[in-house]
């Protein structure tokens, strides 16, 4: 592994290989010259808008579109009835009114029978301008017959609860997965139950149980979702500009949904203004824009507004968890059991590998060494927006990390033991790796205690505890919270991981031009991760070509090989590995060409960054640029060696990578008002090799801000009538710079043993790890009031109520 600071500099001052360099893409972003979907304007393009349901649960008795159709400038008004009338030559149903979700459920494109959540798509207007389209929405008259909405997952399983998915003939509100299962279990139920029974009977052991809610939140990317669709009737080619984190997977889904030939579909994701998982699913709006272009023969743009984004697109979390831990009184953890009631909303639109219906939640056993763990997840339908998993969560590892890290703190409080000490007693030890977790995950590498000690060192942990004791004596409430998390990212091995049957291996293609400059074509899709920079650096590291000489192409299915896209921190673990592998193929081929040119055997050649040379005669060699020209020239090539310097690869990861970290948060709480001030936040991440440390830090900064948001303010709550109470940025609060302290970052580097460059994904580490640190700190601050737990978001009101001893359901309307 090349140490980051060792990379030589290119003529442009960039590291040839790994090291911090400014992001190539920022040149256009900071100048306002990015090109987002809403910047795409095609000749003759029409605009569109979606009429959405004001009710969470209601039968549609009639829809009258005549007045809207009569408005000048309106080209078409489409309802569920219209879609039922469009035959679809596909296996997934015979008309367009319903579409498949990424979890083998069906979702209404436009409601036909009922509306099932507030904000659901009911009618679609295509018009000459966005304004006219919106004006027309007001002229559509829909008669609703309101039904009782199911707004609480706990109500969903009541025998008398209204049935939400009567369209599927269901008789209760349980989600059924593709395998016909309605409950998802993991770990060893029997040995875990036995461990708890032993602990209950043993006076030297304790069992701590805690109900923990991870409330519904929303990824809320700056750019909302949208698309521009154009079906060229002459060529039969459908071009879709769209806000997609997974352009190739979307193309295949459209081929299935629309019954269009896949070779005629081109999906282009231009610059994407943030995704966080929100842009993984296929939304009715995208499909409607396709229908719009089919119906009108013109390009059609659909772009949702902020409220539509918050109310109808992929939410995250909504996990109601009951967790218990058994431990000895000395603080050795023996077993953990978690029961989850999972709110999936009205359609099961969760985006995750098929065999993992609860995502990777079952990695909840965390970073600790104990033999017995078990979880059971019961998914239910409610009258809330569909989606799930999204929001930088590594397929629900956020929920997993949160529950175990909160539980460990509850245990520490019960044992009256310092939470750092308790963690140090239980962390996995370096010699245990690769480590097989009790729920079946093989952690690849880690030196957990070392990382934790670095964090404690930066924090000045002992000094902080002393300060806390002094302050408490004065009646001031300061808290220190720790979170130690392990993620499994980089889905994934195709043997076990697919989405809608599409295996999660990534293709890649690298061409080196005659002048030694290259073009790398990726299947993954940046939404702010800086792929154009990092991937060029990977090639640069492998071939010694300056990063500025590598053009990274992504986001266009016609120009890039197939792959499943960017989410779950998979780009570096999967496509990053692919980039390294494809560059090594080029390097190997370059060796053969160099040998031909130098008239020696390839075995006589040795590689140094950017150059093959003859062993023992360093002067005799060929640079990669010289080899590139030779490969395209007239040099006589050996048997079996084709000309040119191109290669492709498909990378099938042997395992996930397991980044981890230790976060420490310091807060001050004003018990008179319940206000929380985050004073310090220390984040020590181990994501293996750091390709571009500056980008890694940027990813961590953003994720920490996300974590602060979720811990303190972000929430999609509903009232009992079914109203979404987080439908604007006045209601759905995102943190600002003011709420964020100066992040204090540290690192340890434990490379992944199975990744070609030892890198692990880092895109979600901070979002996964930080909420627990913040909450643990707040609870630590107010523990003198007898508080052991309070649910997020810890708004001033919720903190005050916790201090009063009144824990409340934070996900419902405040009463």
């Amino acid at each position, binding site marked *: 592994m090349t140490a980051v600071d060792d990379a030589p500099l290119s003529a442009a001052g960039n590291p040839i290989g790994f090291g911090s360099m400014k992001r190539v893409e920022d040149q256009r972003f900071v100048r306002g010259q990015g090109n987002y979907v809403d910047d795409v304007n095609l000749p003759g393009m029409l605009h569109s808008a979606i009429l959405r349901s004001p009710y969470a649960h209601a039968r549609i008795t009639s829809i009258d579109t005549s007045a809207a159709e009569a408005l000048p400038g309106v080209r078409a008004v489409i309802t569920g009835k219209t879609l039922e009338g469009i035959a679809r030559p596909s296996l997934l149903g015979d008309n367009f009114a319903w579409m498949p979700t990424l979890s083998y459920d069906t979702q209404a494109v436009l409601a036909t029978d009922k509306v099932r959540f507030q904000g659901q798509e009911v009618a679609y207007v295509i018009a000459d301008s*966005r*304004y006219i389209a*919106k*004006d027309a929405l*007001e002229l559509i008259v829909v008669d609703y017959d309101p039904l009782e909405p199911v707004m609480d997952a706990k109500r969903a399983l009541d025998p008398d609860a209204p049935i939400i998915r009567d369209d599927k003939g269901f008789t209760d509100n349980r989600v059924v997965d593709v395998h016909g299962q309605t409950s998802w279990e993991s770990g060893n139920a029997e040995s875990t139950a036995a461990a708890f029974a032993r602990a209950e009977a043993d006076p030297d052991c304790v069992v701590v149980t805690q109900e923990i809610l991870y409330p519904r939140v929303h990824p809320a990317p700056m750019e909302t979702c949208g698309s521009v669709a154009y079906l060229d009737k002459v060529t039969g080619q459908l071009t879709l500009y769209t806000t997609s984190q997974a352009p190739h997977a979307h193309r295949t889904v459209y081929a299935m949904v629309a019954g269009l030939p896949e070779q005629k579909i081109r999906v282009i994701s231009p610059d994407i203004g943030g995704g966080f998982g929100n842009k993984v699913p296929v939304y009715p709006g995208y499909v409607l824009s396709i229908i719009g272009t089919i119906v009108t023969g013109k390009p059609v743009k659909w*772009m949702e*507004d*902020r*409220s539509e984004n918050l109310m109808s697109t992929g939410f995250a979390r909504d996990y109601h968890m009951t967790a218990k831990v058994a431990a000895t009184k000395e603080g050795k953890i023996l077993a953990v059991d978690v029961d989850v009631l999972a709110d999936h909303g009205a359609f099961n639109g969760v985006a995750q590998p098929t065999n993992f219906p609860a995502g990777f939640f079952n990695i909840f056993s965390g970073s600790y060494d104990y033999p017995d763990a078990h979880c059971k997840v019961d998914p239910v339908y409610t009258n809330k927006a569909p989606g799930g998993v999204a929001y930088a969560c590594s397929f629900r590892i956020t929920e997993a990390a949160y529950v175990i890290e909160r539980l460990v703190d509850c245990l520490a409080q019960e044992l009256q033991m310092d939470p750092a000490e308790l963690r140090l007693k239980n962390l996995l030890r370096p010699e245990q790796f690769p480590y097989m977790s009790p729920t079946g995950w093989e952690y690849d590498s880690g030196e957990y205690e070392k990382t934790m000690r670095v964090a404690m060192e930066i924090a000045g942990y002992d000094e902080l505890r002393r300060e806390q004791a002094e302050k408490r004596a004065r009646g001031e409430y300061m808290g220190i919270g720790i979170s130690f998390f392990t993620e499994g990212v980089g889905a994934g091995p195709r043997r076990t991981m697919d989405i809608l049957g599409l295996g999660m291996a990534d293709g890649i293609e690298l061409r080196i031009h005659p002048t030694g400059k290259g073009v790398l074509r990726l299947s993954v899709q940046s939404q702010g991760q800086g792929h154009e920079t990092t991937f060029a650096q990977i090639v640069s590291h492998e071939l010694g070509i300056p990063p500025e000489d590598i053009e990274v192409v992504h986001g266009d299915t016609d120009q890039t090989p197939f792959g499943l896209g960017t989410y779950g921190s998979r780009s570096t673990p999967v496509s990053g590995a692919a980039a390294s592998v494809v560059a090594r193929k080029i390097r190997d081929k370059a060796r053969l060409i160099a040998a031909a040119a130098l008239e020696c055997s390839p075995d006589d050649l040795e590689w140094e960054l950017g150059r093959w040379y003859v062993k023992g005669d360093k002067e005799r060699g060929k640079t990669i640029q010289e080899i590139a020209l030779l490969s395209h020239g007239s040099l006589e090539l050996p048997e079996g060696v084709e000309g040119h310097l191109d290669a492709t690869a498909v990378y099938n990861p042997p395992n996930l990578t397991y980044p981890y970290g230790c976060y420490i948060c310091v807060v001050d709480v004003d018990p*008179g*008002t*319940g*206000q929380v001030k985050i004073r310090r936040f220390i984040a020590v991440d181990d994501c293996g090799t750091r390709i571009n440390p500056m980008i890694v830090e940027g990813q961590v900064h953003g994720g920490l801000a996300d974590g602060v948001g979720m811990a*303190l*303010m972000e*929430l999609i*709550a509903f009232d009992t009538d079914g109203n979404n*109470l987080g439908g604007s940025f*006045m*209601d759905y*609060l995102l*943190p*600002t710079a*003011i*709420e964020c302290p100066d992040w204090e970052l540290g690192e340890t580097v434990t490379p992944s043993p199975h990744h070609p460059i030892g890198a692990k994904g880092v895109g979600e580490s901070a979002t996964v790890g930080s909420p627990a640190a913040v909450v643990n700190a707040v609870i630590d601050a107010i523990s003198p009031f007898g508080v052991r737990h309070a649910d997020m978001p810890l*708004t*001033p*009101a919720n903190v*005050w*109520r916790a201090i009063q001893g009144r824990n409340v359901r934070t996900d419902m*309307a*405040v*009463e």
Partner: protein
Amino acid sequence: MQTPAPVDYVRATSVENAISLLEQHGEDARLLAGGHSLLPMMKLRLARPEILVDLQGLSELRGIKVDGGDLVIGAMTTHAEILDSPILSEHYAIFREAEKVIADPVVRNKGTMGGSMCQADPSEDLSAVGAALKGTVVIQGSGGKRTVEIRNFHEGPYETKVKDGEILTEVRFPIRPGAGSAYEKVERRVGDWPVCSAGAYVVVSGGTVTDCGIGLTAVGASHFCAPDAEAYLIGKPPTEANLAEAARLAAESCDPTSDQRGPADYKKHLAQELTLRALRRAAAASQGA
């Protein structure tokens, strides 16, 4: 992108011109000041005026000055100008303290004194400041000008004494030598509307409170003020016990409702806690000054 319903726009050339435009269009017209309350409502189509009469160009409505014994703030003076005003800070810390926590710099650069008063949102911070300081507003119509006390200005949520065809032109606050003042706000996040805010001025003379004013917002205090608490304090020394009792009385007069910012009992608690904190600092400032 959120899109308002169709609307016309005209820029007023003078106060008189604005008034005549209002009269001409009647109920269909709406004055546009900073637009930071009106435009969001229009984009959500909760408000749909047919014509906007923009006051932006009227420099005569803008500015801060001393006029006799009064501080005068023109209706079109922005939050940012109030925040930065040395004249206001010299007399009352409450302006700066309140403005620091109203919205964010973008909103403060546009939002105005007049717009805040006339929006009459039950959570408006400047209403609490105005009520605490017992200010007055000047309202102008084709029939001339009239003056209304801020404590008598609000008719209810989003309703004021400004009638169709009238404009609020300025807000006046009596200068009180020796007064200390302070503002306290709890918000869920910077830039958010208050969960509760409380502001106060106190004049301590010869060891007793000779004059004071308490303003509260977002907690259902009638006319944003707490007269019983004020009456209680007058003539008493500003001891912790007396201030606490006044704060208790202030909270008593509030009638908050529960919403996503917090439950009613919490808001009532805040009314007491924040009034006490504001009174403490105002009394200390008066004595220190």
